[in-house]
């Protein structure tokens, strides 16, 4: 019964570093009635931190280009990265409501014979999975074959998905619970931890500009996550995933602290719980081995 069809916007890090989250997203949502079809010709969203800091005009135009590709397919966009969500969702939202901005962007897009019309909406896969009208935690629970019993998972929401509050619609940015509900639908126990809504540290180009500064932020989160007794971290953004996953290697090199805290994109965890094998999920690509976690659940 696949009546929900979306153009699947991939971004960069998911397809080019964690392809497991891409394939998991496609196959798990298929089972839940969501059909993700390729958005041909899409590019970098472009990364809000990296591009927004240089020239906001280019950021608007390139993001609009990606949206127009989906407009031409006549499909709403679904994506799996918080950074892409800020670029694609926010630019789409702003262009719809700001004529002056829209005209400026269309001026540029005319050169590649494209025109932004504002006919589609943009969704993060996470909010689609949580929305009872589309999927909802009950349907997720029903689709579970391998309940992730006996493990504690710490949810990392990420910033661009939830903030700024006045330009988003996903509720509280101080103490949300919806990702915990998504995790508990998989059978795992979602644990609260100190300063849960804090940034992973990678955004705004800081990972590239001052790696140790960004790692120090990640380290503070990992301390709180370990304190909460979590067996793994779950995120909704491949860039946060990269920062937590590769970040632990870099933290070990630079700060001499070893965590071995497995990190999963929610799609990967959902795939695991729906019975996909670790190799089908490309978990071997992770910098931090997910074995300790898998031993507990499989």
């Amino acid at each position, binding site marked *: 019964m696949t009546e929900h069809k979306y153009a699947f916007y991939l971004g960069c890090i998911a397809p080019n570093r964690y392809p497991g989250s891409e394939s998991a997203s496609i196959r798990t949502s298929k089972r839940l009635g969501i059909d993700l079809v390729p958005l041909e010709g899409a590019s970098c969203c472009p990364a809000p931190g990296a591009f927004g800091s240089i020239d906001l005009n280019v950021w608007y135009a390139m993001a609009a280009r990606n949206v127009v590709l989906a407009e031409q397919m006549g499909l709403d966009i679904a994506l799996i990265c918080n950074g892409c969500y800020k670029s694609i969702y926010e630019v789409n939202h702003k262009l719809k409501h700001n004529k002056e901005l829209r005209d400026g962007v269309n001026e540029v897009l005319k050169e590649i014979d494209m025109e932004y019309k504002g006919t589609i909406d943009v969704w993060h896969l996470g909010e689609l999975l949580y929305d009872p009208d589309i999927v909802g935690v009950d349907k997720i629970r029903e689709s579970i074959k391998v309940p992730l019993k006996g493990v504690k998972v710490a949810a990392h929401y990420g910033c661009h998905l939830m903030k700024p509050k006045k330009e988003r619609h996903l509720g509280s940015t101080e*103490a949300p619970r919806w990702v915990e509900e998504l995790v508990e639908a998989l059978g795992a126990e979602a644990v*609260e931890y*100190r300063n849960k809504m804090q940034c992973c540290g990678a955004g705004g180009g800081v990972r590239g500009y001052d790696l140790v500064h960004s790692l120090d932020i990640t380290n503070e989160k990992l301390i709180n996550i370990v304190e*909460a007794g979590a067996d793994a971290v779950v995120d909704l953004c491949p860039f946060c995933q990269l920062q937590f996953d590769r970040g632990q290697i870099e933290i070990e090199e630079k700060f001499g602290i070893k965590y071995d805290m497995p990190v999963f994109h929610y799609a990967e965890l959902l795939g695991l719980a729906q019975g996909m094998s670790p190799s089908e999920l490309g978990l071997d690509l992770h910098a931090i081995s997910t074995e300790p976690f898998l031993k507990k659940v499989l």
Partner: protein
Amino acid sequence: MAEAVSPSTSEKPKAPRIGVFVCHCGTNIAGSIDIEAVKEYAKTLPNVGYVNDYKYQCSMPGQVTIQDAVKENDLTGVVVAACSPRLHEPTFRAATKDAGLNPFRFEMANIREQNSWVHMHDQEGATQKAKDAIRIAVAKASLLEDLYPKSVPVEHAAMVVGAGVAGMQAALDLANAGIKTYLVEKSPTIGGRMSQLDKTFPTLDCSQCILTPKMVDVGRAENIVLMVNSEVEEVEGYIGNFDVTIRRKATGVLSPAEAEAKGIVGGGCTGCGDCAPVCPVTKPNEFEMGMAPRKAIYIYHPQVVPLLYTIDWDSCVKCGLCVEACGEKKAIDLEMQDELVKVKVGTVILATGFEVFPIETKEEWGYKRYDNVITSLEFERLICASGPTGGHLVRPSDGETPMRIGFVLCAGSRDSTGVGKPYCSRFCCMYSLKHAHQIIEKIPGAVPYIFYMDIRSFGKAYEEFYYRIQDEGAKFIRGRVSNIQEDPVTKNLKVYVEDTLLGRPMELELDMVVLAAAVQPTEMTNKTRKLFGVSCSTDGWLLEAHPKLNPCGTTTAGVFVAGVCQGPKDIPDTVAQAEGAASAASIPIHRGEVELEPYYAMCIEEKCAGCGMCVNLCPYQALSLVEKDGRTVMQVTEAKCKGCGTCGGFCPGGAIWMNHFATPQIVAQIDAFLLGGEQ
């Protein structure tokens, strides 16, 4: 338009000769309007018999020039082009009267508030607008007629809605002035917010010690009819003659007087409290902010006035145990019903107070999520000797005595995000200083941290109080708290704030945090104010007639405001305003009569077809159809008509004459503007 004759004029009116007086108002008008050009133009207008200008028309000499001009030039009407009629219409009407004319043969042209002040850089536009305004005013003035204000008797009684410190003070003043005062309070006891406080700043008086004597006075004053558990249900009438319907909610308990009225000799509630212990139902006590229990039949605290128990019908299971325990006093009647009481009063004072802003909506501070984050009112109860913990400040999470307590100021105030309130709640700085003192005094070694943006210690002896508290050891950190995180194990609170004077972010682990939350009007205020036709300002507080010159009055004649319901203020200002409101409210009552502007409607019977359209348009039921020599015509009960003109605005036959705003007069104004004055 039909030939303009009002039903009241018998003899043929004299040909209109209007005097136009243009005011400079110093430079307020002359600064952006060419007075000479306006004067020259006024001279060319039809019906104008005299034109002059003066630097300050509203001054005594200014008014004398009007009187002389009227006499010397045999004028029939006066037009003054100056400020807003809302300001000086009464002044110039008096001058017109002294000049021998009927005061209502006067019209003002507003060429200051609605002209020179708002078109300061466009002299040409402003001057042209002034000419038009004068032309319009003269057109109306030419058709004005003699009117005589109706004077209506004023009921020798007043009403005060809300019995906090403001309402009590106002009621006491009115009662002592010999005026019968109905004091209506929605909760079971009087005392309001102030009775929930422990100490008061800056004198550190114990709040109950200075309030309870007043409460007892109110209870004992024979001129005060105390109506607790009561709400205003309906209001009719106008200044001097307010017919107010009060809903006296059933409390299930009879006072000695009520019992006697029912023939129960020597019965009625004496406050002995035998009933409460047997009551099987326990609920949180709202007075103690839910931090202490009360039974379904309860009194908030021992000093309640009146000393009567009340039944909370939502939780009472009607088991009747209390009735047995009450014994032969037979004070409890579980079948008691609400009672609607209609009273007639001359003036009304609204003193409906405030409630605490729902500070949990500012999620970053975690109120209701974290056990040890409480509001300032909850702190007052915890620190108060008669409070739930007997004055021992304890952490809700583990009952321990907190040693490091944080106070978050501007919690929800000075917040323009749309979640909080944009205004400053005015007294939180001072009570937070007081709280810091109370901690230092009661808990040796305890350290209070005050997170502030500004300390607003503006009142008498307030800054000295601030000096004293800082000297006693309170820590002041200049920064607005960003967010608070709770330690899941110890339930301690990590406060994240920047000391902006030091320029460094701070993470302070505290045992307890008190939010100096914003204040807002009570939920009931909006309903009550509409009943009295009182509007509110954009921030939701009741709108005073004029913020500086008439802070206790409202635009509804005979209705006054006192206390925080008109805007945040501390107790000294509240009591001062209550006394002001009481004195203002007593004036019409002492004078016994009050003049109403004679703008009432009149029926031009020869043109009235008796269709009755106007009758149901009138919100005051002032119109009725009567038989008059074989024809049904409309008749106005002048006393009831307030002159709004809603009937006059829709009479199909043009048969309604609105005094001072008659159809011909308004049409003359329209034509004067658009047709350049020629008829």
